[in-house]
């Protein structure tokens, strides 16, 4: 089945008009040809009539010439004048020529030719027997060779007259034949013309009637086409506004059906269930017109079972003309009847059936209704598909809306402020958390430039940031995030963690900012920093403690040795002394006692230093203004009993301005230690020894310097200089090895430092304390 059969365009008016015009043209051409033919025939008939006239005229001329010739001959016979013989001779020649011509003219008629031949013979006979011999007789008379009587007898007898009359009679016969022919031919010509006229009239009538027919058909066609087209477009237009399949069906059937002679119609949509195990499709009754079964049903059909399914599967129209009574009834309140015709039309889209239109009627649909139904059915496919797509889109939109509402819920429910802005910096959205955070309501902010949420200088520079990003695409914060300061509605500031992402929304660029108020975090961080600082301090304290512990361990170790050593020695020495006394070895006993005494003295010195150290460590002291010069003098006075003091040249150089506050006892301890060391470790081998004591300011520090030309500290020992229990000149003088250690500890307490510098002839010790 050719589905284009029902196309409106197939009934082409051009085609019809062309056919009609061609037919008319053909008739006219035929008519022309026929007329031409008739004219030719008439012309030929006329020629024959003319031909007959010609023969008659020629025949009359010959008769005349014959009579003239005889008259001239007789004239000569009577007169003997040669003048009569000239026309005689001319006529003799002409008459024979004319007879020959006439013979040619009537050559189509042998009986006439035969008459002319016998005429010819008679003339020759006359000439031979009468004409020429009588002329010769007359001429002989004139020459005197014949008698007058001979000539007179010729004239009286007139023997030629009989022959001439015969010839004339023969011509009359000839002429009568020709005359009858003329009449016959003339009649023939007239009847032919009459026939042509009748035929022409008939053909003209035919052309006129066929043209009228064409016009009628064309008009009918145009009207039908207009009817189809206008209803088709109305239906399509009405259907375009529908959004659901049910509405679509209602509009379609209620608009289409009143135009048709059909009584009921139903529109089914069809879904192929590919998931089903069986090869099934679901048929869904979308809507009906004039049908009793209005309930919307969904029925699963196996493919090819049932007419609707068949129609669906084959994608072809099914027309049932002899509907069995049990199949289907058209009902009304008056009763019911079986329809004459049931028509099922597949509605196709994209080569698959998406719906079926079923119609029933008591009569076959007239052609234009059929064309309308088919043309509408052809348009339905894409429209139903559109409606399905639209329904699907609506469902999807509903889902999206729900999802948007949900996401909006998420955004509003977010603890982080979420703000979106356009490329122009204008706020597009402002969530609940943002409202709480900034103190603005969304209504106040949306439509405003986002910079109102910023303090200076960002407030003034934000537009240029956006422009810069738009120009260069260089991301300074997008996708990175940073901590910045935000401004609340009330003008107060808070620290925030800002992360910005770029959102491409249907070709529009938005920037989404997620903001977290980090005031609490900042506080926590500060607390943490404080805690860290505390920890650091504690660690330092611990380190100090560890160091102190290490020192204490060292101290304990050394004291266990250094304290115990002299005691053990002394005990042994006392034993030895005792034994020596027993042996009367007084010398050894005395030495032993002396050593024991020295050991115990060392012990006493050590204990004194240890006590001093312990006291120094535990002692807390406040700063007080000191007189350095006085302190130096007092220290020197204290040391003047020491061995070798008297040989020392004591130099003092004090250049201090203003007063100086310091923990005095600490400074004094350092000063005394330095001076006593300088005295103890003087180089006795030198001719002159000196101690130079200086006090001065240098780079904001108070400096106390003690310089000597004593023994100095061996270079390899200098690193251990300020450690505990270090002694460098054990044989020169006894020390506990704690002096320099004690000095360093005291310098630490003064927040200063003590340093050693070896010089050419001795040592330089410097105490530097910040003022």
């Amino acid at each position: 089945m050719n589905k284009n059969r029902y196309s409106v365009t197939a009934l082409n008016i051009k085609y019809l008009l062309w056919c009609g015009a061609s037919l008319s043209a053909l008739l006219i051409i035929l008519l022309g040809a026929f007329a031409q033919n008739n004219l030719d025939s008439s012309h030929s008939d006329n020629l024959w009539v003319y031909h007959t006239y010609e023969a008659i005229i020629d025949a009359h001329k010959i008769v005349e010439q014959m009579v003239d010739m005889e008259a001239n001959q007789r004239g000569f016979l009577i007169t003997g004048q040669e003048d009569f013989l000239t026309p005689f001779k001319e006529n003799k020649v002409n008459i024979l020529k004319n007879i020959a011509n006439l013979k040619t003219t009537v050559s189509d008629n042998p009986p006439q030719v035969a008459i002319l031949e016998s005429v010819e013979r008679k003339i020759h006979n006359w000439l031979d027997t009468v004409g020429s011999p009588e002329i010769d007789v007359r001429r002989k008379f004139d020459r005197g060779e014949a008698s007058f009587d001979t000539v007179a007898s010729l004239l009286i007898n007139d023997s030629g007259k009989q022959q001439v009359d015969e010839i004339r009679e023969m011509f009359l016969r000839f002429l009568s034949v020709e005359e009858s022919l003329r009449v016959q031919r003339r009649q023939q010509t007239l009847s032919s013309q009459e026939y042509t006229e009748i035929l022409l009239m008939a053909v003209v009538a035919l052309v006129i009637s066929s043209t009228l027919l064409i016009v009628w058909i064309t008009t009918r066609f145009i009207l039908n086409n207009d009817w189809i087209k206008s209803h088709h477009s109305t239906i399509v237009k009405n259907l375009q506004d529908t959004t659901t399949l049910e509405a679509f069906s209602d509009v379609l059937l209620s608009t289409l059906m009143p135009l048709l002679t059909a009584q009921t119609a139903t529109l089914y949509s069809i879904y192929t269930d590919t998931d089903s195990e069986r090869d099934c499709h679901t048929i869904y009754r979308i809507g009906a017109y004039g049908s009793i079964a209005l309930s919307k049903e969904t029925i699963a059909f196996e493919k090819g079972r049932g007419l609707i399914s068949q129609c669906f599967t084959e994608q072809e129209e099914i027309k049932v003309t002899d509907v069995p009574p049990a199949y289907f009834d058209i009902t009304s309140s008056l009763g019911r009847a079986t329809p004459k015709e049931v028509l099922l039309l597949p509605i196709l889209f994209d080569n698959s059936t998406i719906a079926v239109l079923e119609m029933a009627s008591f009569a076959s649909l007239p052609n234009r209704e059929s064309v309308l139904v088919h043309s509408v059915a052809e348009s339905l496919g894409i429209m139903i598909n559109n409606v399905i797509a639209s329904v699907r889109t609506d469902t999807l939109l509903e889902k999206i809306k729900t999802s948007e509402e949900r996401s909006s819920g998420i955004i509003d429910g977010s603890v982080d402020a979420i703000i979106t802005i356009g490329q122009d910096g204008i706020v597009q959205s402002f969530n609940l958390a943002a409202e709480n955070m900034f103190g603005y309501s969304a209504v106040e902010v949306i439509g405003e430039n986002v910079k109102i949420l910023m303090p200076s200088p960002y407030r003034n520079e934000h537009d240029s940031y956006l422009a810069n990003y738009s120009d260069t695409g260089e991301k300074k914060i997008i996708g990175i995030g940073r901590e910045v300061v935000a401004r609340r509605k009330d003008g107060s500031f808070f620290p925030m963690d800002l992360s910005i992402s770029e959102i491409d929304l249907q070709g529009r660029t938005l920037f989404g900012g997620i903001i977290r108020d980090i005031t609490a975090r900042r506080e926590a961080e500060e607390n943490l920093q404080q805690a860290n600082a505390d920890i650091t301090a504690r660690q330092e304290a611990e380190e100090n403690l560890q160091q102190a512990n290490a020192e204490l361990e060292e101290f304990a170790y050394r004291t266990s040795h250094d304290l115990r050593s002299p005691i053990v020695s002394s005990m042994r020495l006392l034993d030895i002394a005792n034994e020596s006394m027993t042996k009367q070895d007084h010398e050894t006993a005395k030495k032993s006692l002396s050593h024991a005494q020295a050991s115990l003295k060392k012990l006493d010195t050590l204990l004194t230093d240890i006590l001093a150290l312990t006291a120094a460590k535990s002692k807390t002291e406040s700063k007080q203004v000191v007189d350095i010069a006085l302190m130096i003098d007092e220290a020197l006075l204290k040391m003047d009993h020491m061995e070798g003091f008297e040989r020392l040249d004591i130099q003092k150089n004090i250049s201090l301005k203003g007063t100086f506050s310091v923990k005095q006892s600490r400074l004094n301890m350092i000063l005394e230690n330095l001076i006593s060391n300088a005295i103890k470790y003087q180089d006795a081998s030198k001719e002159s020894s000196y101690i130079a004591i200086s006090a001065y300011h240098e780079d904001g520090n108070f400096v106390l310097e003690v310089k000597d030309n004593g023994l100095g500290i061996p270079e390899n020992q200098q690193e251990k200089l300020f450690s505990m229990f270090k002694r460098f000149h054990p044989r020169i003088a006894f020390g506990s090895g704690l002096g320099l250690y004690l000095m360093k500890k005291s310098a630490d307490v003064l927040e200063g430092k003590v340093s050693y510098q070896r010089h050419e002839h001795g040592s330089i010790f410097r105490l530097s304390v910040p003022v």
Partner: protein
Amino acid sequence: MEVSCVLVVDDSESDQFISKLMIESYAPNIVVLSAYDGQEALEMLASDECKPDLIFLDINMPRMNGHEFLEEYNKKHDKEVVVVMLTTSEQKVDRERAMAYTCVKTYLIKPLDASQLGAICKT
């Protein structure tokens, strides 16, 4: 072991006195040399005059203590000379550190007495 010369390295004059007295009472012909710290002992050993058979070594001394002395001594000298630690330190670390040297034979706690000396000389 034939002992003819002993070097006592100790910063305490009292202990030097005791050690010298003990050595002389054990064998009067033994020459007793004295060094007051490790540094001095090394200097003495470097000279040709001093060839001791036995060294008594204290640990706690100024300038160069016993441990430092052993470290330097171990680098420079042949290990023919027997070293005996003679100290008041009963610390385990000191004992282990000293006994790690092959030249160190014995670790004695002060004061030295004649019987200890005899035991050393007989081995």
